[in-house]
């Protein structure tokens, strides 16, 4: 089988490596359509979904690790093409139950195939829970760390060369970069579990498929930075709880497939994709409805921005009018004008020493 992954961000594609390791599969990862005939061409993000149609392939698919249009800020114009990419005649390889359901919501009838994310290999030995040092936290926003009262150390996420390994990984939703490789909401949690860390996560975007509260991690409200900080404080203070959750996390990581197993599973999925009928795209009326709905949203954001600018320019106009009125009033009253001119001259930088002397004299009196 020849499989081509098309990406627009040069970051590595783990599933491509896993597929290659599974054997009997020739894998090409490219930023542009590669030469030659492929069995399956897989787009790794919404921007590659158009490029994948330039690849000479029997089947075309998209790897969907998150709903990219939903992860983007609502005012971003990229939401429109990111949504329309889901209407293309593609098979969708989805990496969690949440993504599968969200895809079905966005485009009912889209053909989705579940593929597993592999368990990352731990970079080093897990950090002991009861070492008495600060809680090692990865993935927390600065405001969360600042709100903590117990000692904490900000460490990199596992997989980014993290050393020492974190005690806990924080996984909360955040606005995505429209030009970066999409990352599964589960990825930091799985990486943390594999490195022997527990997780503090929001119950959103499928994180609760992996995080079982009070067994392998703790769940928090998505917008509650102080509450998240307090949860981390509790882990820092209660090392027995931390150790118990980390043990649970390690068990969860053990139960998760390795990248080798994920690669073998992907081979099976791609064979079924090849055996199935080619996928169909969304009907034109659905595609147009999606386009119009997103365009309407963008127009609403744009008009809100225009209203803000208009309000600011009106405020500036009013200020200018008031200044002009003041100027006219000063011209009409020479005595008042003389006072204003004297005040301006008194503030001249050359008179600073004199002002200081006057200030001291006033202070004495």
């Amino acid at each position, binding site marked *: 089988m020849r499989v081509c992954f098309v990406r627009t961000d040069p970051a590595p594609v783990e599933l491509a490596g896993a597929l290659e390791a599974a054997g009997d599969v020739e894998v090409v990862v490219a930023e542009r359509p590669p030469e030659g005939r492929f069995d399956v061409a897989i787009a790794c993000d919404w921007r590659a979904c158009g490029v994948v149609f330039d690849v000479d392939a029997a089947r075309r698919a998209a790897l969907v690790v998150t709903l990219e249009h*939903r992860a983007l800020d*609502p005012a971003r114009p990229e939401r429109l093409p990111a949504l329309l990419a889901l209407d293309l005649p593609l098979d969708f390889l989805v990496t969690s139950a949440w993504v599968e359901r969200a895809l079905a*919501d966005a485009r*009912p009838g889209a053909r989705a195939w579940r593929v597993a994310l592999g368990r990352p290999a731990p970079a080093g030995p897990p950090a002991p829970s009861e070492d008495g040092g600060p809680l090692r936290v990865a993935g927390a926003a600065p405001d969360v760390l600042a709100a903590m009262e117990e000692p904490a150390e900000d460490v990199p996420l596992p997989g980014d060369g993290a050393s020492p390994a974190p005690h806990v990984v924080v996984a909360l939703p955040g606005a995505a970069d429209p030009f970066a490789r999409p990352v599964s909401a589960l990825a930091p949690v799985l990486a943390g579990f594999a490195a022997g860390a527990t997780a503090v996560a*929001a*119950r*959103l975007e499928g994180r609760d498929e992996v995080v079982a*509260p*009070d067994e392998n991690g703790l769940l*928090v*409200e*998505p*917008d*509650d*930075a*102080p*509450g998240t900080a*307090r949860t981390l*404080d*509790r882990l820092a*203070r*209660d090392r027995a*709880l931390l150790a118990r959750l980390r043990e649970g996390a390690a068990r969860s990581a053990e139960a998760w497939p390795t990248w080798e197993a994920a690669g073998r599973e992907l081979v099976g999925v791609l064979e079924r994709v090849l055996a199935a009928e080619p996928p169909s795209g969304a009907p034109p009326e659905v595609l147009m*409805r999606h386009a119009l*709905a997103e365009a309407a*949203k963008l127009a*609403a*954001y744009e*008009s*809100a921005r225009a209203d803000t600018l208009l309000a600011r320019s009106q405020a500036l106009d009013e200020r200018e009018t008031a200044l002009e009125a003041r100027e006219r009033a000063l011209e009409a009253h020479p005595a008042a004008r003389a006072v204003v001119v004297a005040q301006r001259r008194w503030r001249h930088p050359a008179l600073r020493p004199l002002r200081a002397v006057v200030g001291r004299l006033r202070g004495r009196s």
Partner: protein
Amino acid sequence: MRRPEPGRPWRIAFVGQEHYFGVCSPRKPSRAIDPAFVDHRGGADAELMLARVRAYRPHVVIVFRPEIVPPGLFAGLDALTLGWNTEPLPRAGLPSHRDLDWRLTELLETDPFNFDRLISFEPVSAPSAEPRLRFWRSLPLPVADEVYAPLRPMGRPPRVAFVGYSTAHRERWLIEVKHRFDVLHLVHGVTGDRLLDVFRRIDVAINLHVHEYPQFENRVALHLAAGHLLLSEPLSPLHGLEPDVDFIEVRGPKQLEWTVEGLMLRPLANRHAVRVRGRRKAEQFRASRVYPRLVADLAADVATFGSPRR
């Protein structure tokens, strides 16, 4: 700290104006919690309220609007006490509003030593009450299980309603839409079972802020739980909801008018998915799920960090 015997539920006494907060607390006992509501408002007989609470022998007392409890009243009460701020407050970096200032003044009447922990319905404005009051966490007000309803087929035309008292801000948003379409506006006095009756008869709900300042109204969760398609001004914070995914965000009166017009005139298939997702997302507010978790966390946190109560 008194905990329930193993296998027995936490007995929780909810204190507040039942008129408003009855829909935020569970009514029926479950394996995890055994609730009772003690109706009380600021200025009413606090000793009577305390006697009712004591008679119930709760493990936990949850007070909606902690400022309604006189200073020192809960001293000696053998139960965990949790005060829940339910009112919006001024936000750092944004111009305040006299309504917000007044609410903050009221909240600051709270005796922090009455409560083991304080929580706020949203995290953005909670710091304005510091350092006098420190919030343990922020959590949107839950929704009683009775409010949850299966999705019903939408009426043709759909029945649209707004529940909330009139303000200049709200009327500015509603005036056109009420003139052009049959929009039910419930201004006051419809609560409890009557409110649920109304909820069963409407398909589309509108959510508008009281004044210009942004917030997250409890009404949002109620409508989503009832299976309504929600049209709302931008919410802040979102508490995990996604605009145009779980509810329809409207950014001005004209957009509200056009959206309602679209619902009246055109097929509803494209909005059905939003309704389904909103109803699904509303499960995060379900009282029978939220309170057991909250009470367990409260007990664990107090056990770990102690309590400021006197």
